């Protein structure tokens, strides 16, 4: 088939482009529906790769057919060496980032040592530039990161200096990762500095991963897949370390301020706050931070954003979460300090005091939201405020 030879040639052109410039960091399809000249449809400028659109389908079909035929063990493609498999899957994924077969082939290449984890992470980052939401790409990254962590742990077992602790403990003790945060936030030194941070690239790789998530979130509004992946990295690669979580709260504040209608960004902050709430004791004992103050600060932030940028639903929804957190924090203190069955006068007084505090919190909130200062004159914002007040009434009847 004529297309087959064209496809073959296109693939080889693509491979040369990547060979010529291993630092390609962006690619796109150029609106050229018909081939106009006899030259290659690839354009390479300043590490950006352009592919004329007429050639995309031909290239994809050729690469895809080759790969499937190889998997089916069909004669012409029975023996493809790893380099060829690498370039076929690369061509496929640049066009269709959600082709699981291609990603899975790359998993096999990684397992066989023909492709490095870092190389594949880099390639995935490139794919995300054009397909910032691709679920299969993010899924593949999780597999790669697992591999990376396994490799790190495996190579650190031999050099374990703290006797008696198993790999799991070492993984859990990641609190000591230094993340260049506020000078005011200097956590205490941990005695069992885990071997994982001594792995030269661990921290850097994970930081790069957070950056990939951020870029994908920049490139597509409400990019739930990117933010979910970011949460996953926090959980599986940083083990929700308080230092990292708090650092993330700090560093994403600027982002949400510039993306005020991005529900996913605010949802990420809700996750961070929840992490902090679950480790509130540790937060105050070891880092001298009060969880309640952190939530209050978030309330100030959201109030400021609502005032400055009226009419954005995401802000009001985030406010619901923050207010709920304040109430729960109040309730938690109540449960800790009051003995429910004790009928002493002191206990009763405590109970009343805390109930009053809850009431005051509620009334203050209703007041703030009803105040014209917060809602402004913009009609839609007033509607959102009203919905919020309706929600509070329902919430407090629980």
């Amino acid at each position, binding site marked *: 088939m004529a297309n087959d030879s064209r496809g073959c040639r296109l693939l080889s052109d693509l491979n040369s482009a990547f060979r010529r410039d291993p630092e390609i960091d*962006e690619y*796109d399809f*150029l*609106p*050229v529906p018909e081939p106009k000249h006899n030259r290659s449809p690839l354009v390479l400028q300043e590490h950006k790769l*352009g592919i004329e659109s007429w050639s995309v389908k031909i290239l994809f079909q050729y690469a895809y057919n080759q790969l499937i035929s190889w998997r089916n063990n069909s004669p012409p493609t029975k023996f493809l060496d790893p380099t060829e498999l690498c370039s076929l899957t690369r061509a496929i994924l640049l066009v269709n980032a959600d082709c699981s077969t291609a990603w899975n082939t790359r998993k096999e290449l990684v397992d066989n040592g023909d492709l490095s984890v870092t190389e594949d992470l880099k390639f995935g980052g490139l794919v995300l530039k054009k397909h910032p939401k691709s679920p299969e790409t993010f899924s593949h990254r999780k597999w790669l990161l697992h591999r990376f962590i396994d490799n790190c742990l495996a190579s650190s077992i031999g050099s374990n200096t703290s006797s008696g602790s198993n790999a799991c403990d070492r993984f859990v003790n990641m609190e000591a990762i230094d993340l260049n945060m506020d000078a005011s936030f200097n956590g205490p030194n941990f005695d069992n500095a885990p071997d994982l941070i001594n792995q030269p690239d661990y921290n850097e790789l994970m930081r790069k991963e957070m950056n990939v998530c951020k870029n994908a979130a920049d490139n597509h509004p409400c990019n739930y897949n990117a933010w979910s992946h970011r949460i996953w990295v926090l959980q599986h690669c940083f083990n929700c370390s308080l230092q990292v979580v708090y650092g993330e709260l700090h560093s994403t504040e600027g982002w949400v301020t*510039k993306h005020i209608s991005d529900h996913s960004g605010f949802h990420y902050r809700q996750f961070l706050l929840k992490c902090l709430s679950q480790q509130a004791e540790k937060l105050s004992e070891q880092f001298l931070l009060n969880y309640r103050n952190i939530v209050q600060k978030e309330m100030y932030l959201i109030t400021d954003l609502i005032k*400055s940028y009226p009419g954005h639903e995401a802000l009001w929804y985030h406010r619901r979460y923050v207010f709920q957190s304040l109430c729960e924090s109040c309730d938690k203190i109540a449960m800790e300090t009051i003995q429910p069955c004790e009928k002493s006068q002191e206990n009763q007084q405590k109970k009343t005091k805390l109930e009053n505090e809850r009431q005051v919190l509620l009334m203050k909130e209703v007041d703030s939201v009803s105040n014209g200062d917060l809602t402004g004159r913009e009609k839609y914002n007033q509607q959102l405020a009203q919905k919020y007040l309706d929600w509070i009434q329902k919430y407090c009847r629980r």
Partner: protein
Amino acid sequence: MKLYCIAVLHKGETKVNSLASAHELSPFGYFQRSSVKEFMDFTCQIVAERTMVGSRASMKEKEYICHVYVRSDCLTGLVIADHEYPQRVAHTLINKVLEEFTGKVPKSQWPTANQRIVYGELAGYLQKYQDPKQADSMTKIQSELDETKIILYDTIEKILERGEKLEDMVDNSDRLSMHAKAFFQVARKTNSCCVIL
């Protein structure tokens, strides 16, 4: 929350003359930037042509909003932003730019001068006001802005004349390059969000 373009034009009796403009193209793909810039200029042109003298409007088109003010002396300011950027700040910025431009370039030049006019501050404003809080320094001008007078349009098509279609205008335009036109067709077909129109 982004600002993409600020432009100053003169709405003459028979034609609209482009005087100065600044663009922020980094949010767009490398290969799309030149076409996007052409489309922003094209949009400014057709919006200025179809907005009445003395009126203020904000027109939505996909994820973009084009804010325009045609002053009574026909000096026209436009700002293209995303839907998060506050309308009030965009119009205040237009006022500020028009005021400053009037001081710099004599009225006699407006109908005929073209982009040879040097108004370097415009690029600086585009950068500075990416953060609308910068507008706090403009609060005096802000309070003079009557937001109720801003006409809102759901799409740019609303300001086109009867029978005018965007696709035809793009096709027939002698201001757009072949590359930009091809870009528009593709984006239109895929309903992609990279195009102003």
